[in-house]
């Protein structure tokens, strides 16, 4: 079963195409990252599937069915900003959310505990700091222990400890088999938690799929030796390598994904009379890959 299927979704604001013919599928149990720079259409995408925005054309399905409010109740969603009644306490706000979802009332104390807000649950929402508001929004998503969670920039406004906590929470939720759909412009966030990814640029879907396939399409090994000229020569005939390049002082060897073997490289160089003083396996950095994808 797929949790979300997006088919040819477009959304225009006058001449601006916020989303242009986007299609992808979110498989059950995945941590699905929607990645893209500011203004690429991430929030527009999530807003559309939550019936906040009306698409110009195209359609989407939730749990393989036509979308309705009944399915939204089964999804914990944090969209763009924490939206709560300023004059009510954190706890009262969660009561309203639980009533609308029609489940999760019994979870209120538990979810407040999870996001570490129990001490301030009786304070008005307007007195919360940005990070606390974000925590309350995450707590609201967890009400009723939903199997699908949608997080739009979940670590916004959180301190480093908070960011680490939310990441642990997401890993934990994913470990329980829950599906998480997460929009972010923070690359390491996606790299650390996501299993699948879709990359948006100016409203267009550039690519989507398994995170390992998309974000690193080859293995890279960095090597070095005293005589780098000779090393370069020797490496030209290295079996299995797709190409070898020299950038500055370091030499990089590229292999098809999953095939790099450091022992083989080391013994090959040694038998050919070069002793390595530097040998390290590096996947291509996500950042480099991201710029590569979004710039051309």
């Amino acid at each position, binding site marked *: 079963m797929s949790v979300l299927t997006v088919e040819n979704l477009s959304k225009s604001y006058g001449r601006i195409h916020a989303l242009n013919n986007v299609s992808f599928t979110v498989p059950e149990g995945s941590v699905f990252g929607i990645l893209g720079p500011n203004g690429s259409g991430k929030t527009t995408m999530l807003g559309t599937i939550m*019936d906040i925005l009306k698409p110009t054309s195209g359609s989407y399905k939730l749990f393989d069915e036509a979308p309705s*409010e009944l399915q939204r109740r089964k999804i914990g969603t944090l969209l763009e900003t924490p939206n709560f009644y*300023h004059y009510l306490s954190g706890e009262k706000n969660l009561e309203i959310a639980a009533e609308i979802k029609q489940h999760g009332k019994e979870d209120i104390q538990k979810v407040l505990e999870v996001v570490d807000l129990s001490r301030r649950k009786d304070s008005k929402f307007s007195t919360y700091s940005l990070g606390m508001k974000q925590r309350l929004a995450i707590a609201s998503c967890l009400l009723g222990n939903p199997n699908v969670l949608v997080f739009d920039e979940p670590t916004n406004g959180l301190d480093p400890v908070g960011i680490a906590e939310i990441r642990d929470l997401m890993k934990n939720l994913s470990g329980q088999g829950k599906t998480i759909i997460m929009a972010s412009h923070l690359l390491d966030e996606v790299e650390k938690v996501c299993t699948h990814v879709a990359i948006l640029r100016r409203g267009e879907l550039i690519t989507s799929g398994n995170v390992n396939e998309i974000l690193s399409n080859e293995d890279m090994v960095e090597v070095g030796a005293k005589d780098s000229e000779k090393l370069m020569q020797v490496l030209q005939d290295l079996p299995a390598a797709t190409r070898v390049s020299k950038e500055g002082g370091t030499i990089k060897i590229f292999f098809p994904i999953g095939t790099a073997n450091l022992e083989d490289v080391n013994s090959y160089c040694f038998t050919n009379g070069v002793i390595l003083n530097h040998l390290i396996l590096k996947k291509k950095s996500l950042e480099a890959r991201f710029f590569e994808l979004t710039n051309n």
Partner: protein
Amino acid sequence: MLHLLKIEWLKVKNYKAFWIFTILYFFAILGINYTGYYVNELTTESLPQSQLLLGTPYAFPKVWQTVGWMSSWLLYFPGILFIMLLTNEFNFKTHRQNIIDGWTRKQFISVKFVFAFLFAIVATLFNFLVALLFGFLTTGSSFSFSGMENILYIFIQTFAYITFAMFLAILFRRSGAAIAVFFLYGLIFEWLITVLINFKMELSPIGYFLPLQVTDVMLPIPFGKSVIYKSAPDEWTLVLGSLVYLAGYYFFALKKFTKEDL
């Protein structure tokens, strides 16, 4: 619907501004009618002939209409209150969150109108009690059911003012704009348009069918009606006109809220 109302109740139960506004409004109803009652007593005491013109506005059966007309000047209070309740949702973006959490757009609008309906009923009940009080306070007046249809008019007028205000709030989304238009239109421009249509263009009674005016004419000043609302249509036509507006506010608010981006 009961469950939706329960949620609406949770939203206002701990909202201080809502209760302060509501209590002030109810005190003001009592206050404005006491003022009217007192001034009327003083006038008839010092100038007994004035009764020929004024009649006995706070005696049964006239008291139902008098209280309704006096209180109608205060209808901007609940209007502003409901503008606040709606624009709060827009400001806090909770109108979005309610939908995200599992309401339909229609439920969001419908429960607001039903809540306004209940509020109008409570306000009408209070007006009824106030009328009862001043009716009994007036010497030589004995309880009478005649003129009780004015209680229905009070309800329709209250509900119409609130829903008109809500409609403006949904249209403009900002409390400042909605309140400004509400006041300027209700207190100045509607009168101007009525006068222009009815007297300048001589298209009377069309000018009496403007959104707020139609309810004002239904519950007119207790004396001198024939001068102020010359050739006004009968009450039931006005009731019908009001109901058309009420349905229109709901229909267009629903249409706007269900078709557009939130």
